[in-house]
């Protein structure tokens, strides 16, 4: 499972800024669109420190707010974009043979309608159904031979691919494009970027619009929760591990209107049982894919008095939705919000 890292950046602020940027860009869409699309500095999906105005998500004419009224945007090639490792990658034409080395990337590619162009996926890609039938070319450790045999035009992967494999692939002239979305915004920017690279911008925009709508629906449903009523959430995505702030998973908790009890940590950390007992979370989420984890959590010495366990709010979550920074993460967000505030979120 990808353990990608995100920062929460203020979705509302970003959307508004993007809208402004879109209007500006629309005005200058006519002139020199090819040049603008080609500039590397617009496209840094994992930079994190990008000012909202510059992150135009790389579409030619800027984002149409409702989408669908203008004719489908065509990507102009050659296209040079910067990936998460800072390297510039050049595409002379839309990639015909695409490989993916992490399940979240696979989901995005299929969602953009590129299923027939995918020549290889990693061992953990299991959604959608068709992904299971694609040739397996190795997981995040990167088995270079299988990837070479698939002869892809581009390989999409998360940044955690080990350095040796990255070097090997670069040596063999296999185009590797790494991403590391660290927030919900970055997840969606990455989708738009893939849309641009593969000339599927209309599908990408629709997908992102749907995701934004889902996020907005959840945010609206919980916006009336007063700060003192907010529920404290503890999420254990792997036995003994939780997530601190600065990760997209923690952002999910925030958007769902909860408070992450591990928010004083950053990154993916082992839990300190004393801290969890002290924080007394109202609801505990645990990954449904580890057999017996629920019972272990409930039986932990000293945990029986925690509010979540006393009130029986120990809830499994589907790791394919929450642990993957892909198109279904908003579905995971809704599931999480429903569990935290069942009377407010349907």
């Amino acid at each position, binding site marked *: 499972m990808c353990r990608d890292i995100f920062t929460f950046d203020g979705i509302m602020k970003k959307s508004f800024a993007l809208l402004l940027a879109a209007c500006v860009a629309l005005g200058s869409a006519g002139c020199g669109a090819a040049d603008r699309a080609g500039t590397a500095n617009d496209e840094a999906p994992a930079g994190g420190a990008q000012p909202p105005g510059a992150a135009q998500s790389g579409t030619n004419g800027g984002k149409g707010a409702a989408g669908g009224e203008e004719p489908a945007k065509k990507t102009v090639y050659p296209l040079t974009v910067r990936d998460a490792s800072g390297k510039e990658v050049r595409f002379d034409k839309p990639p015909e043979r695409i490989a993916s080395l992490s399940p979240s990337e696979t989901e995005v590619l299929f969602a953009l309608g590129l299923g027939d162009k995918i020549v290889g996926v990693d061992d953990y890609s299991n959604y959608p159904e068709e992904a299971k039938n694609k040739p397996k070319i190795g997981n995040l450790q990167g088995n270079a031979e299988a990837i070479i045999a698939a002869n892809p035009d581009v390989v999409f992967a998360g940044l955690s691919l080990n350095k040796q494999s990255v070097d090997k692939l670069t040596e063999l002239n296999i185009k590797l494009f790494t991403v590391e979305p660290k927030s919900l915004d970055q997840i969606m920017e990455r989708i738009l970027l893939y849309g641009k690279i593969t000339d599927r911008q209309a599908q990408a925009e629709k997908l992102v619009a749907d995701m934004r709508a889902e996020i907005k629906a959840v945010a609206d449903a919980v916006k009336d929760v007063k700060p003192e009523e907010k529920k404290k959430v503890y999420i254990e995505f792997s036995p003994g591990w939780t997530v601190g702030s600065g990760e997209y998973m923690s952002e999910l908790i925030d958007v769902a209107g909860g408070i992450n009890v591990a928010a004083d940590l950053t990154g993916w950390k*082992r839990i*300190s049982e004393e*801290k969890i*007992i*002290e924080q007394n979370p109202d609801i505990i989420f645990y990954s449904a894919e580890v057999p*017996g984890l629920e*019972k272990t959590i409930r039986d932990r010495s000293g945990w029986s008095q925690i509010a979540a366990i006393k009130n029986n709010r120990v809830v499994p979550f589907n790791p394919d939705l929450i642990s993957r920074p892909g198109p279904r993460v908003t579905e995971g967000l809704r599931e999480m919000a429903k569990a935290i505030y069942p009377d407010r979120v349907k």
Partner: protein
Amino acid sequence: MNGMRRRLFLWSGAGLALLVASVVASVSLGSANISIGQVWKILLHQLPVVGDGVRVDWPGPSEQIILKVRLPRVVLAVLIGAALSVAGAGFQGVLRNPLADPYTLGVASGASVGAAFLILFGLQYALIGSWSVPLAAFCTGIATLWIVYRLAQMQGKLKMETLILSGVVMQAFLGAAVSFMVSLSTNVVNDILFWIMGSLTMRGWTYSLLLFPYLAAGMAVLYGYARALNLFALGERQAAHLGVHVERTKLIVLAASTLLTAAAVSVTGVIGFVGLIVPHMVRLLVGPDYRMILPLSAVAGAIYLIWADTLARMLLSPTEIPLGVVTAFLGAPFFAYLLQKQKRTFRG
């Protein structure tokens, strides 16, 4: 005899006092912010008569933390430290090798195989909940001992050199098996390594309560052979001439020590250096008499592990350092210091 007894009582008294002080200190420290005063009120409240006089003015979670998280952890440290040290003393006595430690016969690698196997397949909590890993580790640990024993037996006799060699061979083989499993895993590498490096996290009271009778029995058995171990130091033939049943002694001491070790490792992972260093430290302080070394190793081992565990969870709080790492960092330099002191005394 009288002199020995008196010295034993003096040293035990000092040791136990230090142990109690260590328990007190360790329970008062932790990543949750609970004042020392509150810690003591919570503990006193538990006592049958005195406790009712203590007014309850602490938040519920604090009580849970002290009684259900810290106290069981300290108690487990006491039991494991004592078990490993006594087992180490037993091994050193019967193998007559100062480098012997409880893991010489491959028990550590054996137990790690069982644990790694379960963690690799995500079964750590399947079937019997949090007992799955300890049970598997214990079984593979004991199986290892049995194999090593069979390998080393020749015509019903057990040669020490052959035994140590068999242990080394099994350790290498099983170590490779564990490395293989680590290489196969992608998501759980951390978890396997963390288990192997030893930890007292999230163990609760259940392990301590269940292990205590076995540990006590094992230590009692070993203490019964203290005189025999003293005579062993002269050599096996000489010991036999002096009336020691050599083969039986070897078997029982090894078996008891290994059972203690397997039980300890299966619960906490591989905590190294305790079984190797503590008996030596005790020997440097009180001399070579096993009737003193065995009980005092238990006390010293307990103190050592309490402090190692306190450091492991406090130094980088709330992140925990694996316990095996801390025991090595602490033990090696301190042992070197003791050796230096000893050398200087001999030079006169």
